[in-house]
């Protein structure tokens, strides 16, 4: 902690525990907490507490103060959790703090192996209940209960006199028992977040984990039960008794049903990729349930009970649930499952993509989920081709994609293009994919979309066409398409020069950079000409991102001319320096010829900081690279820098040398050495708001709200 902050800290702590002092809004407290988190990551929490006794005081004080704002109380509890995350600090707090402090109240034997904070925060944050509202809580909580507090966990249990430390003070039984009781007491709306929090812990009793997982699965089990005709696959329904409150929530209203399902799906989605997720993971049942939810949403599911019938009516056309289910379905693609499940998932996705009723947002999610399923689909071992399922699927998918590329709604065209780009990026080399794509009209339609009236769509079309072209997929190979195959570069260059919107132009620059990097035919044919043309177009652009991308392209070209940038990782195997493809003078002449120096030096004085920063990095790289060739310095005595110095004012003014590339390489090099690039880099590294963002400023702001820093209060008048 820097001394300025350390100096302000006691005053701040005093403000926080003083109920009369107005505390800045919750976001300030959140920022403060974030700052403490970074501080504790950097240094020992115990040392921090020892050096700043005001913190311990704050923690022990907050629970005693009446009428303290809920925000401050919540903040203090979470701060305690952050400190207590280190075991020695936990013990330090136990000894030092007053009897009412949170850590004091926790029996030492309950010290979980995992940091307290990780689970405190995990079930604190999502557990936003309003305890004042529910009658069950009133007896327990008293008037000054924070909105998010541990107390909410035990609120539905038997009323007790207001405890000083809500969760840890339970006299009967352990912490885990309290949590287990909370889990069984809370309603379906609040159980989910708690269950998720429990399951995210790696070390907690198996019985509790099992209970939590059942709670989490409850809503999907209900859905599955309401729709399966025959007993479904084992796993999800096993041991999940019909929970009346869950069913009630599902049936109560459209919003409560959708809300519960969306939350459940999101929790499961969060849990799925974690290593500590429950095992065995009921992949098949979850997939079945998700597919069922999607079928309920599109109205095609057949209900097996009155609950099912009701769900049918409630969920039909419910876009919110559809989106959540598609997200989760996409996540489920990461699990291994039998072939038939893949078929099922792909079928429901295809229906969703096909259905005229699917809204643009649903279609976007459906495309994303389809992509994940396709890319994770099992491949035939030892065969480079896609599995047996995929070719058939692609044959059905491409007509749908064609239709979506013609959709009047631009969002749909946009997501379809993004999907196409991603799919061809991964599968561009697969024969089955190439075959299906070239047999369809998708490439022509994508090409057509370069002229779309919507700039986002044009940008996506540029990216898609760039990707297709990289893999030779942008037009059929038949002779009548020869012209189309050749003219793409010119078409993209045209967009770069004349498009009125920034997005398509940025996309073109990205495509060109990719092309240069991958040795695309259009770029490789005459690389210097290609780079010169592109840089010239980019240098005139008003959009800083286009110019920054131009520098990216320049960097790629530099790497290709002078050898790749050195890796900075100290453990990387040091590769022998690759001999440059051509002598240095030649290389530098090429750089001058394409106008790279012009471009880079102009960018160095760019009014947009990121561009200048990037240019600075590029020139530093160039300087270091050249320094490794000592020969050049030996060869020449004092180079004539006059021409370059003459150009300097023009660069500052943002003008290009006319014609470009008329500098002498030696002059440029001298210029390069004479500039204080390091100094420039550190100046540029500081953002314009770096003062405002500092923790010191945050502390000052908070104190100012409390009126502490106003030394002369009388002089206002």
């Amino acid at each position, binding site marked *: 902690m820097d001394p300025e902050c350390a100096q302000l800290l006691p005053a701040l702590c005093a403000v926080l525990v003083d109920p009369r002092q107005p505390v800045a809004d919750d976001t300030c407290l959140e920022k403060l907490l974030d700052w403490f988190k970074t501080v504790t990551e950097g240094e020992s929490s115990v040392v921090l507490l020892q050096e700043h006794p005001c913190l311990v005081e704050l923690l022990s004080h907050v629970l005693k103060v009446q009428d303290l704002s809920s925000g401050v109380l919540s903040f203090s509890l979470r701060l305690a959790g952050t400190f207590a995350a280190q075991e020695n600090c936990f013990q330090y707090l136990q000894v030092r703090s007053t009897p009412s402090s949170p850590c004091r109240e926790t029996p030492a034997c309950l010290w979980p192996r995992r940091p307290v904070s990780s689970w405190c925060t995990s079930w604190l944050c999502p557990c936003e209940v309003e305890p004042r509202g529910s009658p069950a809580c009133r007896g327990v909580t008293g008037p000054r209960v924070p909105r998010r507090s541990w107390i909410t966990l035990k609120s539905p249990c038997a009323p007790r006199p207001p405890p000083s430390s809500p969760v840890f003070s339970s006299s009967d039984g352990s912490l885990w028992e309290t949590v287990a009781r909370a889990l069984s007491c809370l309603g379906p709306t609040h159980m989910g977040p708690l269950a998720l929090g429990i399951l995210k812990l790696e070390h907690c009793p198996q019985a509790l984990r099992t209970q939590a997982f059942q709670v989490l699965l409850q809503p999907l089990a209900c859905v599955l039960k309401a729709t399966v005709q025959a007993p479904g696959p084992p796993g999800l329904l096993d041991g999940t008794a019909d929970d009346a409150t869950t069913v009630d929530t599902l049936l109560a209203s459209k919003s409560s049903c959708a809300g519960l399902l969306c939350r459940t799906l999101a929790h499961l989605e969060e849990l799925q990729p974690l290593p500590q997720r429950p095992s065995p993971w009921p992949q098949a049942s979850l997939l079945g349930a998700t597919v069922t939810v999607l079928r309920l949403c599109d*109205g095609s*599911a*057949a*209900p097996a009970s009155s609950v*099912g*019938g*009701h769900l*049918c*009516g*409630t969920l*039909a*056309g419910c876009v919110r649930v559809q989106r959540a289910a598609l997200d989760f379905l996409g996540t489920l693609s990461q699990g291994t499952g039998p072939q038939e499940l893949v078929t099922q998932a792909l079928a429901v996705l295809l229906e969703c993509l096909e*259905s*005229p*009723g*699917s*809204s643009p947002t649903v279609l976007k999610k459906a495309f994303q989920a389809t992509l994940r399923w396709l890319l994770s689909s099992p491949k035939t071992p030892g065969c480079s081709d896609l599995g047996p399922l995929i070719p058939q699927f692609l044959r059905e998918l491409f007509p749908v994609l*064609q*239709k*979506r590329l*013609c*959709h*009047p*709604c631009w969002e*749909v065209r946009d997501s379809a293009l993004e999907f196409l780009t991603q799919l061809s990026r991964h599968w561009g080399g697969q024969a089955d994919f190439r075959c299906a794509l070239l047999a369809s*009209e998708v490439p*022509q*339609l994508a090409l*057509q979309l370069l*002229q*779309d*009236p*919507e700039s986002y769509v044009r940008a996506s079309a540029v990216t898609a066409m760039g990707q297709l072209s990289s893999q030779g997929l942008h037009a059929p190979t038949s002779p009548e398409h020869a012209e189309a195959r050749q003219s793409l570069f010119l078409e993209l260059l045209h967009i770069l020069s004349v498009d009125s919107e920034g997005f398509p132009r940025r996309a073109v620059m990205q495509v060109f950079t990719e092309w240069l990097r991958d040795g695309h035919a259009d770029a490789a044919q005459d690389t210097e000409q290609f780079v010169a043309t592109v840089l010239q177009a980019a240098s005139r652009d008003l959009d800083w991102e286009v110019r920054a991308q131009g520098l990216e392209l320049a960097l790629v070209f530099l790497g290709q001319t002078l050898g790749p940038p050195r890796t900075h990782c100290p453990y990387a195997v040091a590769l022998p320096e690759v001999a440059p493809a051509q002598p240095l003078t030649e290389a530098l002449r090429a750089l001058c010829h394409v106008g790279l120096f012009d471009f880079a030096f102009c960018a160095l004085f760019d009014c947009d900081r990121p561009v200048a920063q990037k240019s600075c990095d590029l020139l530093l790289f160039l300087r270091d690279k050249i320094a490794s060739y000592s020969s050049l310095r030996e060869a020449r005595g004092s180079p004539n820098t006059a021409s370059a110095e003459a150009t300097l004012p023009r660069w500052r003014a943002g003008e290009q040398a006319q014609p470009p590339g008329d500098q002498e390489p030696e002059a440029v090099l001298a210029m390069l050495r004479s500039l204080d690039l390091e100094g420039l880099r550190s100046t540029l590294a500081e953002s314009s708001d770096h003062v405002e963002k500092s923790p010191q400023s945050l502390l000052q702001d908070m104190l100012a709200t409390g009126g502490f820093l106003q030394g002369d209060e009388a002089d206002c008048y």
Partner: protein
Amino acid sequence: MKLYCLSGHPTLPCNVLKFKSTTIMLDCGLDMTSTLNFLPLPLVQSPRLSNLPGWSLKDGNAFLDKTELIDLSTVDVILISNYHCMMALPYITEHTGFTGTVYATEPTVQIGRLLMEELVNFIERVPKAQSASLWKNKDIQRLLPSPLKDAVEVSTWRRCYTMQEVNSALSKIQLVGYSQKIELFGAVQVTPLSSGYALGSSNWIIQSHYEKVSYVSGSSLLTTHPQPMDQASLKNSDVLVLTGLTQIPTANPDGMVGEFCSNLALTVRNGGNVLVPCYPSGVIYDLLECLYQYIDSAGLSSVPLYFISPVANSSLEFSQIFAEWLCHNKQSKVYLPEPPFPHAELIQTNKLKHYPSIHGDFSNDFRQPCVVFTGHPSLRFGDVVHFMELWGKSSLNTVIFTEPDFSYLEALAPYQPLAMKCIYCPIDTRLNFIQVSKLLKEVQPLHVVCPEQYTQPPPAQSHRMDLMIDCQPPAMSYRRAEVLALPFKRRYEKIEIMPELADSLVPMEIKPGISLATVSAVLHTKDNKHLLQPPPRPAQPTSGKKRKRVSDDVPDCKVLKPLLSGSIPVEQFVQTLEKEAETLIQIEEDSTHIICDNDEMLRVRLRDLVLKFLQKF
């Protein structure tokens, strides 16, 4: 109050409401699905169709008519809610002895006329050489192949009406404007309200002083071209008759428009033609507006759009002149001044061309690939038949069905085998069940009456409990040829009082704000209006002949005001009794003595009365 249900088709309703001595027909839609039983009428000789074996081209166009549930000559008025729901009008006004008035808005009449004109034109321009009706005989019909042998009541099918009948029928229409109040025989008042579905489409309120019936037919809450729906005026109805909901409750019109555009673009890009069977008015305006924005963005500006109908020109022009009937957005364009619909610009830039038929100019201008809008959606008559024959053999072409009135598979049946692609994009902007349930919650009618189809999920999706009307109390359902007694009794009637009679009344205030008075008057009833007039002056009494008793007390009695309410003025009452009946009544704290000297009967009567009152306490 009774409702006679003459049509079982929920979107082509025809109901008769008997309400307060008036007989009101609500809509007269024409169910044309029976035409699907016939072969198409080709515009040019079709060897394929004429060479079909068996019952070819013998009988033409007959339509289902009403059952004789009610004598249609007794119908006083017909209320039309939109142009699709008036297509049976000539059958009712011309051949049933109907002498009443038809009420409809101006756009309804004008566009309805166009639809009828088109229909008559389609039928009359291909006259049939022969006609057959023997097959309608039940014994023969039984032998016909399905589905013809299963068709019900073929004997009631009628030939298409003539233009003369159309004109005569339309001459009986009186034009009305939204919210205009129309008195019917003084008994009820009817008012059309904007329903948001089509140009000039209306819902109707039929009300007396104390009862209100709302008739909701073909309404839409979507923002398309017509004026938005007036929901507020439907509040406080005793009965709400609900018809004309969307025929495709699972299809979202926006999604379908998207589907329409995508398929159109894909076909045209490949050099194929697109055929859109449609009515000459309605959704076509929205489709053209959508294409106006879409074709440029899809790079299809050079593809010609053709609109072929005998009434194409009038339809496109009429749409531009009914500004006051359009949505706000379009109305405000008129003041710029700009045409409210962008199809004017499409016509100006030659992107959209319209022709009365395929003959004449069209054949000179015809360029492919193209998009053709033409009728009739049943594919049984009109220019569409020609295009089906022309384009059906190529898989490059596409027919896109947007009108939901006909099953597209049945419509296509006589053209099979078909190589062209068929896309079904039904666009029905009428209310869906979610919107209905919101509407009913909003306007809270006491009773809802609707076709039976709306009270259960569609047969193909029996599990979709959301696809039915859900309200409390449950909706009363009707089916064709049913008579429904509507579930409420009339309780009050408004009666007016002549000023001089009102002047003579002496009201007595019985509690603050409420006064009563007795009236003796003559009730005069004429044209369903009731009027209280002063009673005729009594004839001068002939001198004392009938008088029982000559008494001086009579004037005293007259002083007494008739007792309307409140407690009895006891002393006065006792005194009067003493004078009138020679009765002595002594009232004390805990007893009452009644003494009648001569009249034992009177005494007993008075005693019983007192006892009776005692029991009440």
